[in-house]
């Protein structure tokens, strides 16, 4: 059974990706996820380098092990206010 990760993106990332989409869960960390995302849209390289990642309402780094069925939120630099 193929498992997929759900990806949610916000703000300027929506100029490069659909707001929500799925990727097969072959990625194990955020660096591998970035590589997959760049195969979808290589023009996102510059903005992705400044993005943070979150799972279940908490930020994660590259040491965090991603698993099938994770929902991953990609967070570009903020600018509220």
């Amino acid at each position, binding site marked *: 059974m193929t*498992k997929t990760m759900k990806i*949610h993106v*916000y*703000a*300027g990332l929506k*100029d490069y990706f659909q707001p929500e989409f799925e990727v097969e869960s072959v990625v194990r960390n955020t660096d591998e996820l970035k590589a997959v995302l760049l195969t979808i849209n290589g023009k996102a390289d510059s*903005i992705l380098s*400044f993005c943070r990642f*979150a*799972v*279940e*309402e*908490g*930020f*994660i*780094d590259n*040491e*965090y*092990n991603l*698993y*099938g*069925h*994770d929902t991953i*939120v990609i*967070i*570009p*630099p*903020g*600018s*509220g*206010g």
Partner: protein
Amino acid sequence: MVTTLSSSSRPEVGVREEAADRPASGDNAKATDRPVFSGGTAILEPALSAEPLDMIGMLARAHHPGAGAVVLFSGEVRDNNKGRPVAWLEYEAYEPLAEKMIAGILVTAREKWALQIAVARHRLGKVAVGETAVVVITASAHRAAAYAANQYIIDRIKQETPIWKCEHYTDGEREWVNHCNG
């Protein structure tokens, strides 16, 4: 809705349910997790609002017998940015995390400056020129703490929380603003 929180009734927000194929031992340590509530009592309101902010109502509720100073900051939508005429702004947030982070910032500020009151609210969606995008209110015994805490809160909201603004210009173009210089 207003929720009163104390160290004995801290919220169990964001409790994780382990995915079926995730190790139950919790090997994954997140770089940032839920806010830590420790000591004191905090008055927490939902920080994000799709409706216009009731700044006057917020200020009317921001009185405390132990507070000799109340500072209100209102972030308003300008009609220009870097020489470009702005028609309106659009705010978007990763709401669950933004709410949690703002709550944590307010609790930290309350503890750091011994505030009687710390409240922040931020608009989402389309906000017109001249409207209020964000309000921060702090109240303390003396003005120095209220001023300092207020700036601390708005600075951290702008720099850290997952809230974004898109500038819509009068010429029909738009741009997501990715740097915290507003």
